Structure formats: structure tokens, C-alpha cells
């Protein structure tokens, strides 16, 4: 596909564009959705497309070209040019990275066995059966297989290629209307794929959650399951983008260098994480992906940046382009030193939340939000779990980070419908979390 990239770059330069980024994709994605222990639909997507970014005297524009004939490419470039000519420049645009760069292979990001996998339905059946064996009555979920090829060419000397695979499953198990559990498994190489573990966890939680009583309200110490905390960190990942801060969508606005979390909290973005679902060799302008410490020992160190925003703030790019909007690849909360048992024994009276969804903000810059526990919720009292229902976490993002009291020692990599940026997190114990419930 580099021939297409080169043609686009050549034509774009001929037309007088300045910075040009051509990012070609060839993707093969399969999906199997299931519910009530049966497959509801199976899908296949094969896509070939080019994402194009162009700059003309500080005016920037982008488009996706899916019809890759030379005639359409030339037409598209001319359309961009004529549309951009009368526009006002983006005064805070400072260019793209200067290549070329050297790239290293990242372990466990490609597996031929996934490319050659003919039929993934057996994995679905294994996950369903694992949940049923734990006592679930109804099992629903989704399985994906991915095979992606990326071709990047820029006007600043970058020509880069990456090829990756992935397989993942998300399983939700039900016993009655109110008793459910959820488990996920997302990996890049087939031999590490463990659909049974997702099914088993979903089934185990559903079984534990039987006959829940109305939950309490007030302030409670809360143990967040990795699945639940990953949701919050996934929202936070967007707020670590310098773009989100400028646009008024981040509680980290004006907090560089300040304490924003408990001292035991270190949060990173790891673009080159082996076996990470969001891992890539390079960002959208060709900068090699890397590990960036966002919060270290509770102190906010940096927003995620691309080259232009880095220059604007007199900093270095963090390898997170998005040309318009820098974004995280894999968010990682450094684990602590508690076993799961030790973490639960820390809580005399508290709540264990296994999953959350529907996180919404009252005010992004203040960080006020609420989110709804879904699936098993438990009162934790002297090591015993008692199922409850119908509560809501209503608190403030920074206060949750500041309230982190203990972290599990084992990390879990989470990626599913509600956790769009992959997150690696342990079990997390947070003190005095605001819990509310409907009163009528």
C-alpha cells in the first residue's frame, strides 16, 4: 500500500501543501455476538482506507479516502485545496515530527495463528459453557478477532509499517433479572487467549450476587474490581490529552506539577506495551510510541502531546498523535503490593463494585461525575460479601484518585465496549466514596 501513500504524498506536494501525513489501513475484523447462550449475529469487515492530513500555510484539514483510484485521490486533494484556500489559519499549529525514526518490534503484538484462524465460534462456546458451569442461566457477549496493517508516510521523511493482531471476548452472565456478572479477556496472541476465564468470572460473580438487597447510601470505602476501575481510568485517559484540556473537557486543567492523586498512584500511558490491545509501533506522525508517566507518586507530570502541541507548550512530544487530538494508547495504573485477600481484609465495612457503566460528568473541569455499578455489587463486612443492588457512585474524579488507599499487586488488562482505551489496573481500594440511590 506504500505505492498509494507515495502517490498521495507526491500529488499533495505538487499542489503546494506543506505538512502531509498519509496513514493507510488494511484491516480484517470479525465479530461474533451472542445472547441467551446462542449466537445472534456473526460479522466480517474488510477495509482498506487512507487517512489523510494536510497543512497549507497553517490551515489544516483531514479526510479519509476509501476509493483509492488515482483519479479519486487527485480529486480529493483538489477538493481539500480549494476548500482550504479561503480559510483562516490555525494560529497555534506548529508542524509535525521530523523523521525518519527507528522502530523496534514490540513483543506479542502479531500472531499468524489469529490471521489463519478459520472459525472463532468454538471460543464463544467455551466462554458460554464456562459461565454456565458456574451456575449462570443466560450468557451474552461478544468476541472479536483483529488483523491490522498500518502504512505511514509523511512529508517529513517517515515511512513506517506495523502489523498487529488481536483476539478478545467480553462475557456477561445472568442468573435472574438482577443477578449478573461480567468478565473480559483481550490479548494479541492466540496462545494467551483465555475465553474460559472471562466466562468463569462472569458466572462466579452472578452466582455470588443472588438475592440482592437494596444498597445503602453515604460514604463508603469501596473496592473497585479492575473491570470497574478501568472504566474510570478510560474516561481519565481522554482528559490527559492536551486537546481535551484546551477544549474544557478535563479536570487536569491548570494542574501541571500539582498533587492530584494519592502518593501511591502512578499512572502511565504505554504505547509500546507487549500484548497491549492499544499498542502500536508509532503514532500518527511516525514518532515511536513509548512509556509516558502522566501521574507519578500522585503528582500530575504531563498531558499527552503530539508534536504541534508540544511545541506550543515548549515540551517534547509524548508520541501520542492524533494530529488534531493526542490520545492515549494503553493506560496503566501501577500495581501495589496487596494480595486480593489482603485488600478485602483492609475493609471492615465497605462496598465491592465489580463493574460500572454510564459514567457521566456534571462538570468536566471540576471532575464531578456519577457512574452506575452494574452486575454484582457487594457489601463487604469483616471479610464477608453480601449482595446489594441499586446504588450509584456520585463523586469527583480527583477526589477518587486522592482517596486511593491500597492497590492490588496483580494487574489486569481491560478492553471492552465501556473501556474504549485499553487499561491495565489492579484491584483498587478507595476511601470515602460517595454512594447515592433513588429515594422514590
Amino acid at each position, binding site marked *: 500500500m506504500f505505492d498509494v501513500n507515495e502517490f498521495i504524498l507526491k500529488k499533495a506536494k505538487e499542489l503546494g501543501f506543506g505538512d502531509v501525513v498519509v496513514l493507510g489501513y488494511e484491516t480484517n475484523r470479525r465479530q461474533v455476538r451472542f445472547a441467551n447462550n446462542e449466537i445472534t449475529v456473526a460479522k466480517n469487515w474488510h477495509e482498506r482506507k487512507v487517512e489523510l492530513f494536510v497543512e497549507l500555510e497553517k490551515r489544516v484539514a483531514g479526510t479519509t479516502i476509501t476509493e483509492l483510484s488515482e483519479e479519486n485521490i487527485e480529486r480529493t486533494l483538489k477538493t481539500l485545496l480549494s476548500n482550504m484556500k479561503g480559510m483562516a489559519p490555525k494560529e497555534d499549529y506548529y508542524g509535525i515530527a521530523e523523521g525518519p525514526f527507528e522502530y523496534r518490534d514490540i513483543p506479542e503484538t502479531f500472531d499468524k495463528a489469529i490471521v489463519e484462524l478459520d472459525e472463532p465460534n468454538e471460543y464463544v462456546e467455551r466462554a458460554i459453557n464456562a459461565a454456565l458451569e458456574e451456575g449462570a442461566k443466560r450468557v451474552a457477549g461478544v468476541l472479536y478477532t483483529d488483523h491490522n496493517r498500518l502504512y505511514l508516510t509523511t512529508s517529513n521523511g517517515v515511512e513506517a509499517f506495523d502489523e498487529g493482531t488481536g483476539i478478545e471476548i467480553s462475557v456477561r452472565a445472568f442468573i435472574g433479572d438482577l443477578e449478573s456478572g461480567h468478565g473480559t479477556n483481550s490479548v494479541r496472541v492466540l496462545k494467551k487467549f483465555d475465553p474460559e476465564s472471562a466466562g468463569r468470572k462472569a458466572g462466579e460473580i452472578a452466582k455470588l450476587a443472588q438475592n440482592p438487597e437494596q444498597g445503602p447510601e453515604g460514604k463508603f470505602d469501596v473496592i473497585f474490581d479492575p473491570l470497574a476501575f478501568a472504566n474510570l481510568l478510560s474516561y481519565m485517559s481522554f482528559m490527559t490529552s492536551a486537546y481535551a484540556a484546551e477544549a474544557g473537557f478535563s479536570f487536569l486543567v491548570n494542574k501541571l506539577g500539582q498533587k492530584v492523586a494519592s502518593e501511591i498512584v502512578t499512572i502511565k500511558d504505554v504505547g509500546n506495551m507487549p500484548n497491549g490491545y492499544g499498542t502500536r509501533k508509532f503514532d500518527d506522525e511516525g514518532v515511536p510510541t513509548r512509556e509516558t508517566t502522566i501521574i507519578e507518586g500522585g503528582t500530575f507530570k504531563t498531558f499527552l502531546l503530539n508534536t504541534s502541541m508540544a511545541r506550543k507548550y515548549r515540551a517534547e512530544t509524548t508520541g501520542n498523535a492524533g494530529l488534531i487530538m493526542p490520545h492515549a494508547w494503553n493506560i496503566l495504573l501501577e500495581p501495589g503490593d496487596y494480595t486480593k485477600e489482603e485488600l478485602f481484609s483492609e475493609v471492615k465495612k465497605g462496598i465491592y463494585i465489580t463493574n460500572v457503566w454510564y459514567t457521566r460528568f456534571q462538570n468536566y473541569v471540576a471532575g464531578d461525575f456519577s457512574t452506575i455499578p452494574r452486575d454484582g455489587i457487594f457489601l463487604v463486612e469483616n471479610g464477608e460479601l453480601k449482595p446489594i443492588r441499586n446504588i450509584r457512585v456520585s463523586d469527583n474524579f480527583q477526589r477518587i484518585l486522592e482517596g486511593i488507599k491500597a492497590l492490588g499487586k496483580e494487574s489486569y488488562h481491560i478492553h471492552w465496549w465501556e473501556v474504549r482505551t485499553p487499561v491495565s489496573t489492579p484491584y483498587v481500594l478507595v476511601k470515602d466514596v460517595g454512594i447515592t440511590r*433513588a429515594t422514590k
Partner: protein
Amino acid sequence: MHELVEFAVEKALELGASYAEARFEEKNGTSLAMKNGNPEGLEILADRGMGIRVLADGGMGFASTNVLTKESVAEAVKKAVKLAKAASRVRNEPIVFSDEDFHEVYYEVKMRKDFRDVSPEEKMELLRKVEEEVKATGVNVPMRYLGYSDQVWHKIIANSDGAFIESIIPRVSVTYNLVVFENGQMEQAPFVQRAFSGGLELIEKDEPWSWAVKDVQALKKLIYEGKKPPEGKVDLVISPEVAGIAVHESVGHPYEADRIFGREAAQAGESFVKPDMLGERIGSEAVTVIEDPTIPNSWGFYLYDDEGVKARPRYLIRNGIITEFLMNREYAAKLGQRSNAAARAINYNREPIVRMANTYLAPGDYSFEELIEDIKLGVYMVSFNEWNIDDRRYQQRYIGREAYLIENGEIKHPVRRPILEITTKALWSSVDAVGKEIEMFPGTCGKGEPGQGVPVWMGGAHARLRDIPLRRP
């Protein structure tokens, strides 16, 4: 393109599908953003492709391609049929579709001011106008994120049961996030959108800058004059905007038949509504909720759904009684009914699933003054920020952005963040009066995996809720 769509359907039947549907979609448009006065760049959208959905051996398969040649489409059809057959082996019962009347139809939404003839800089002027008007208020708004988007959606849908529907629907919208910082305090109006199906004239007439000005002035007033809302049992008047989110979340979603039958269980969730709840009371006599894709120029507009079924208004609640679910052909068959044309897909590469279009609380016969005149102590909630609902659509919460105290029948000072956290049945049972005028607000309804954000309107009339346990932050 018509031939290629027909070819896909015929090919699927040839390969052993018992039902086949092909949907060509083409979207063309532009989007622009402005952040704190800086133009953020232009995005040109030109996307087209075909999605093929089949039933074979009782299983369902879907495949799409953006290479629109006979070979590529044939390959996608082959995949869809193969996937359906393989999926059928992990099914307890075959998927069956309801019988429907199908038509050959062409329809188009006309633009009086065609946005395709307007230059990006002229469109950017709309955003600059929002900037200028907001600045002219003198309110300190340090963060301003503005977006403009237009798209023409062209679709051709054919199925093996005789549907052949072609449509052209233009859609245009302006979105903003405004952060007001005054007196050391900060308030925010995020993701506010004004949106229509039609031409640029609709946005110009709607004047999104006026909405933005109203928002920042209300937030400034809230900062300087806002007091704690009353707590405990009070009366609550909700605006059409708040009524809209409430009907969308707690009436529209739980009445989606695919949720009721558990198909969305692992993603968008299930429903407290069960198939045998048709005819049950869920709200007071005053509550009627209508779902209507056919409202001209609405953000959720369509006349035929993505299964080729003719759309009509759907009465989800009539005078407090559950009367109809939202259905596609699969779940209409399960219920022994006809589809009511709620199948929608956001693009050629997505399957049609059960969705809302324009959901609203039907008008009653009260003027706004009549709604508030006998309230001794209450709150008027005009707009909201934070909201969410559990996955069975029963426990929800809405927090007021702009809200006022009502005392002895009069609207008084602003109140800060009144919280309505309530069950669906309690909410709709508490309504004792509904206003005469309706108003609609756009939104993007998320559902499905992979996600499908479809354009919807939500709204209706003002509603008065009696004896509501209101909370403070």
C-alpha cells in the same frame, strides 16, 4: 448502484440464504471546529460502501465492503452467508422475520439553502458568530469549543422480500462546550447541540448563538445568585429538554424489543419491561409518550427504516399505559406482531438494530403559568448536565444545569445542581400535569457493538411532578 444492490441480494439467495438484504450508503459532508477562537481544521467526509445481511439455516450473518465492484460485493456476500451458516450451529432456535408489506420508493429531504454550495469559510462564520455573541455578553468564558457538521446521507436498501427504498437525507448541526468562569467559580454547558435534517437555512433560523448566549448568561447568574435547592419532597417542573432526556432514557430505551429479549444484554443492557407488560400502567393519566421518525426536518427523520419497513408514529405510553414496543422484524416475529420500523443502522458497515428516532412527551392542556401557579415550594429544571440510568432503565438521575426555585407560584432565584434520582415508575407516576407546547432537542443515541451513535430528537412538553424527593449535591 441499483444493479449492484440487486446483485448482492440475488447472489446471497443463490448461495443458500433464505433472506438477504443489501444496503448501499454514501455520506458526504464537512465538519469544522473552533477551539478558543482558533479554527481547528476542516474535515471532509466522503464515505461509501455496502453492507449485506442474510439469514441462512436460521443464523444471521453480516459483511460489508467499501470496494464497490461485483467481485468485492460477491466476496462480502459469500462471507455473510458463510458466517450465518456457522452461527446457526450455535443457536437454539432459528431467526425468523415478520411478514411486512414492502414498497419501491424514492424520497428526499429538500434543502432551501444547500450546504454543498456554501464554502467552509462561510460555515466557519456560523461558529465565529457564536464566538462573537458569547464574547459580547461580557461573561468570562475561557474555554470555548465549537463544532459545525453537515452530511448528505444517500441510501439504497433492497431485500429479498421486495423492498427497494432509496432516500437522500441531509443533516446539519452545530455543537458547543462553554466553560464559564466568574467570581472564582466555574460552571459548564457541555455538548449542547442544535441539529436538523435539511438545509443550512434551518441552522440559520435556529440561531445557535442565541442558545449559547442564553446558556452563558444563565451560568453567570447561577454563579452570582445561585442558592442551594430545597431538599426533601417538593414539586418539580421539568422543561421540554429535561422531559426529553427522561423519555429517551426511561421510556424509549426500555421499550426496545431487542433489549427486552436480552440481545443487548452484554452491551447497552436489558430492560425492566417484559413482553407481558403491554397494557400495564407505568405512569399517570397525564403521560403519553410518542416515538415518531416522520417529523419533518427532525434530527431523527426517516420515512422507511433500514429493513425497508414504512415508518409511522408509535405510541409507547398512552395515558400512562404501556401500549407498544419499538420493534424490528426479528422481534416483531417473536412477539407475533408487525414491525413498527425501528430498525436503524448508522452506516453501511453496521447491522440495523432496534433504535429510537424522535421521542417526546405528548402535550397536555396546561399553560406554563398554570403549571407553576399552585406550587408552594418547588424547582423548575430547565437544562441538565450529568445524567445516567441503570442497564434495566429503572434507576435514573438527572442533575439540573439551569434551574430555579419556585415559591408560591413564582419563579425566583437560580438553584445549584438540583438532583432528581428516581425510579422510572415513580417518575412517570408523579406527573400530574403537562404543558401545551412542545419543543425538541437533538442528541446522539448510543447502542450496539460496534457502537452506533444515531441522530435522535428528544423533547416534548413541560411536565409537573408532585412530591418529588429532590436532592442536593
